[in-house]
């Protein structure tokens, strides 16, 4: 043992219990409990809807939680609206999330945003059941519980939508895109493909006030049109 081996103290079971709140995709960590869609709707209306909208559709404080998934997606486990061709304007939580445990865990640890960790276990089950119901993943009379959540997982619309891409997870991986170190007469298309729209010139405030008053350059005075 190193000379510092005994610094710190043993954690007590009750302490581990108090903090070990995470729930994994295999449901390790999920506490026993249950909550119905209707119980969840009550929680939602009183504690969630003000920020996320009555149907989880609000874009007011965050991207919508619900929307963009179909019965077909629930069948395939792939959200079709995520495909480029779909031109679907948004990516809601239910479109993206592959693992129902993620929602349970996150609501339990962080929501409501201004009172995180204030929900009871059964309230978390319930409000998650309500969200799943808004996405037509469970029926209106559903009671979500630790017993049936693994079945619900099998209906998550994007459950097959995730790819583990190791080269960007490992420090010593090799990325999928790189350049070559050409130094002279390199092949380029060369023309300007995109530039800041004229009406965005002032969208970030007056840039002269975001640059130093001395030095080799000044910020643009965006209250004025570009210099001639």
């Amino acid at each position, binding site marked *: 043992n190193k000379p510092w081996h005994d*610094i710190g103290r043993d954690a007590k079971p009750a302490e581990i219990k108090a903090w070990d709140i995470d729930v994994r995709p295999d449901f390790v960590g999920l506490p026993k409990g249950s909550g119905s869609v209707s119980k969840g709707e009550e929680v939602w209306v009183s504690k969630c809807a003000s920020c996320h909208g009555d149907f989880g559709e609000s874009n007011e404080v965050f991207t919508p939680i619900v929307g963009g998934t179909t019965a077909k997606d629930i069948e395939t486990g792939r959200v079709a609206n995520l495909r480029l061709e779909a031109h679907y304007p948004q990516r809601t939580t239910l479109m993206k999330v592959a693992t129902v445990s993620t929602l349970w865990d996150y609501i339990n640890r962080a929501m409501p945003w201004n009172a995180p960790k204030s929900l009871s276990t059964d309230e978390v089950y319930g409000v998650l059941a309500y969200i799943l119901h808004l996405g037509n993943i469970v029926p209106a009379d559903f009671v979500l519980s630790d017993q049936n959540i693994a079945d619900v997982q099998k209906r998550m619309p994007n459950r097959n939508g995730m790819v583990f891409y190791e080269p960007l997870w490992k420090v010593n991986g090799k990325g999928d895109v790189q*350049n070559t170190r050409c130094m002279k007469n390199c092949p380029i298309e060369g023309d300007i493909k995109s530039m800041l729209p004229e009406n965005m010139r002032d969208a970030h405030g007056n840039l002269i006030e975001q640059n130093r008053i001395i030095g080799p350059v*000044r910020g643009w005075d965006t209250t004025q049109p570009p210099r001639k």
Partner: protein
Amino acid sequence: ASAVVGGKALAAEDGEDAILKLPEHTTGLGQPVAARGYGMPSKWESNLQRRESPGLTRVSQASVSFCPLQGLFGIITPSGLHFERHHQGWWDIDPSQHRLMVHGLVKRPRVFTMDDLMRLPSVSRIHFIECGANTAMEWGNVAVPTVQYTHGMISCSEFTGVLLSTLLDMCGIDRKKAKYVLAEGADGSSMTRTIDLERALDDVIVAWGMNGEMLRPENGYPLRLVVPGVQGVSWVKYLRRIEVGDQKWATKDEAVHYIDLMPDGTHRQYTGIQECKSVITSPSGGQTLLDRGYYNVTGLAWSGRGSIKAVDVSFDGGRNWRPARLEGPILPKAFTRFNIDWVWDGKPAILQSRAIDSTGYVQPKINQLRAVRGTRSIYHNNAIQSWLVSENGEVSNVQVY
């Protein structure tokens, strides 16, 4: 095509008043030492602030403030200007009440106070931290005017703390079963991120020090994880818990965000590495050159996979390149400052920088990235940045490849 008047002191026949008339500070008595027990920048520097990008987020406690790279020097980011990213707001936590728990697949689950941690063998290392979403707004078209907003979700500091491996050794990890650790914060979001054990046992630091003093509250005071080379969201702030486990956790910020949408509609999950990248910080978008003539073009390069080997700069939109001077120290997973000489002849020019890291990886062009990853990836945009210098001296954000 005349540029902004300024820069050069215009001397009247006898000379300038700035020299001939002695200023008050040359003919008076100044302020005492320790007038400020903890000092602040000059009042003339107040333009350099961290700022939000209007419209990017809808609530400022789940938002980002960008670091004003356009005005910074060297490789150390002043802690007062360190970029911020919070998911449920920041706190100034009483450090005497803060605890770190290490448990899970370990022989001895343990609790540490700050007193305990700060007694342990420590390391001090300079590393960059970059949000995985840095430069996100530029995956598609040009969206923001300045380098503060294109690249300002990055900072670089000297961190001091105990290696996570030291703590895991003390707790006795179950080497057969253990494969990952979960790091969790003590703020409202209780941010949680999975880190693979190989990484956790390598250079990850449980840090309390940043640039010589304690972490700032906005950066996780009194304790945060430092995961060199990996995106900022994994550098869990207000760190309260490390759990050793055998499966990835798929937490909200690794299952709903910080996942990369590919053209086929799949998402890449667990893509944490910040690949080799660089940007010219001056002159840069939203700035105006004062005059024709010589400029020291300067910028930053970094790689999550190692150290910077070279930075090339082009002044003609990528046709021809010259290697820049690299300032030392050149350290792994840290900023490297580069400088290069340039004489502006008053004609339009397109400035680009391209970094090469110690693995031989060459920073890609945005079209190369898009060819594989499409335009909707949000995260991990490490493309070459282009700045157009127009005849009027104005520098603008453009895409050229």
